[in-house]
């Protein structure tokens, strides 16, 4: 395992120490560094809380900041935060308008958020939940509830954050976020595994010339494993699966996220994006917003994912809203 670290058991906490040192705009609740919250809560605003395992920076905590999230429960690498921690975050974040739980569709996270929500209710804090399930590769149409949540949650954060910043009530924030959730799809491809520091070895093997289309961000299996092809062909195969679920009509507008999994250079992401742009041109679809870079990673895993959100008049302005977090900044046009 070739990683820059000290004791593998301290990986997450030392990372957090570094983050708090670097970014005074975030802090932690209840004396527990893993209860990550904004230092500037907005009175009366619906709180947005996310959470999940570490090893995916800037997910999840990286989106806590102005016009986006208010708190995040930070788990061990690829492990859920505990219900206690989520409850602490919830209590800190609640400003009387209730809290939206917004996280990815993984059993551990679901159970802990459910437990936290039950406990929050006892404290008279209203919670609502939206579970991201954008990964097309992880289950068939009709079984969307079984799909994993991956990079597409970025768009949900943006919509929820902007809606809450407009002081909309919890039910409305939830409705808009649900709408975005129903309209976003992601496909990923991976070339190499990553190593969980405490485990010390890769959790799967992949051949020197192989790729896995549809692989999950913890190395869960995807749709096909086969010899690496030119990126234009790879993008086509990925895009086809997404397009099939978005039934475009001429003039549709989308937001695109080209997300590197950690080990893939930005140069390659742009080459891939070039092809995606051509394919969307062919569909008569306009890319109204695009972000490229690392938004949801698996540490050093090589690969990338494409997320496409089909916009409408309600979602577009929320996606366009200005955002300022330590890990993600967006100047409104």
């Amino acid at each position, binding site marked *: 395992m070739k990683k820059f670290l000290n004791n593998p058991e301290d990986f997450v906490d030392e990372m957090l120490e570094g983050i708090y040192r670097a970014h005074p705009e975030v802090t932690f609740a209840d004396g527990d560094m893993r209860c990550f919250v904004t230092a500037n809560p907005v009175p009366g605003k619906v709180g947005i809380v996310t959470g999940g395992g570490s090893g995916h920076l800037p997910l999840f905590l990286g989106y806590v900041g102005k016009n986006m999230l208010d708190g995040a429960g930070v*788990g*061990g*690498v*690829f*492990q*859920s*935060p*505990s*219900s*206690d*921690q989520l409850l602490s975050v919830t209590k800190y974040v609640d400003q009387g308008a209730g809290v939206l739980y917004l996280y990815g569709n*993984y*059993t*551990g996270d679901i*159970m*802990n958020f*459910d*437990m936290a929500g039950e406990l929050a209710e006892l404290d008279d804090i209203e919670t609502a939940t939206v579970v991201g399930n954008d990964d097309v590769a*992880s289950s068939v149409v009709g079984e969307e509830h*079984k799909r*994993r949540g991956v990079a597409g949650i970025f768009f949900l954060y943006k919509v929820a954050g902007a809606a809450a910043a407009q002081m909309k009530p919890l039910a409305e924030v939830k409705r808009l976020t649900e709408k975005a959730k129903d309209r976003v799809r992601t496909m990923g491809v991976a070339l190499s595994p990553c190593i*969980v520091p*405490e*485990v010390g070895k890769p*959790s*799967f093997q992949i051949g020197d010339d192989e790729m896995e289309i549809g692989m*999950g961000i*913890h*190395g*869960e*299996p995807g749709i096909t494993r086969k010899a690496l092809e030119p990126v234009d062909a790879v993008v086509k195969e990925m895009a086809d699966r997404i397009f099939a679920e978005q039934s475009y009509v001429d003039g549709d507008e989308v937001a695109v996220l080209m997300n590197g999994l950690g080990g893939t250079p930005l140069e390659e992401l742009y080459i891939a994006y070039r092809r995606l742009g051509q394919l969307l041109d062919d569909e008569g679809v306009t890319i109204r917003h695009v972000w490229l870079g690392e938004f949801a990673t698996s540490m050093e895993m090589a690969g990338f994912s494409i997320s496409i959100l089909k916009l409408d008049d309600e979602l577009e302005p929320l996606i366009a809203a200005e955002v300022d977090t330590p890990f993600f900044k967006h100047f409104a046009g």
Partner: protein
Amino acid sequence: MQTLDAKTVAGLFPRLAARFEAERDALIELDSKVGDSDLGLTMAKAFRAASEAVGALDAPDLSTQMKTAGAAIAKAAPSTMGTLMATGFLRGSKALDGAAALDVAGLAAFWDAYANGVAMRGKAALGDKTVLDVLDPIARRCEAEAGKGASLEEACAAAAKAAADALEATRDLVAQHGKAAAFQEKSRGLQDAGGTVACILADEFNGFMQALAAG
């Protein structure tokens, strides 16, 4: 033995901690096949935390032991299995509320509550290839042994055997939940990782009782 006082039962937790520490790499390996390799880490952490928390209590009753263990596990290992095991101990603790000593009826009630808690929290059904497919047979076997008036060591031996058989039977199932579900048919033939943990629990309960019975 027909009953065990609370003080003696507390000796179970260091055993569990040691056992899961020893099973660490085997569980990592197992979870790496159709999961994310963390199970060995999380279970070692979970039961070390449970043992430390229970060990720090001053003469706790049975229910308090189980509740303390559950709360410690929930904190220390909030993964799928950590959370489920926490839920199990917390529910089991309620079943032992007011019990001054452990008997086979109490044991059966504990495991029944444990399995129900897991099913509720994980929204899993029998046959979904989860830890439930081992926990439920343990509970059912303990109930049957209680009905027969078996001793604690007899009941635990029978439950351990039932768990081992049930674990073996998970090989024929296809995973419906968690990370393993993505592997679909490929999960067939493999024993369930979470079920393995339940089997280890039953085995350690049994080992504990046999050691006490042997004096």
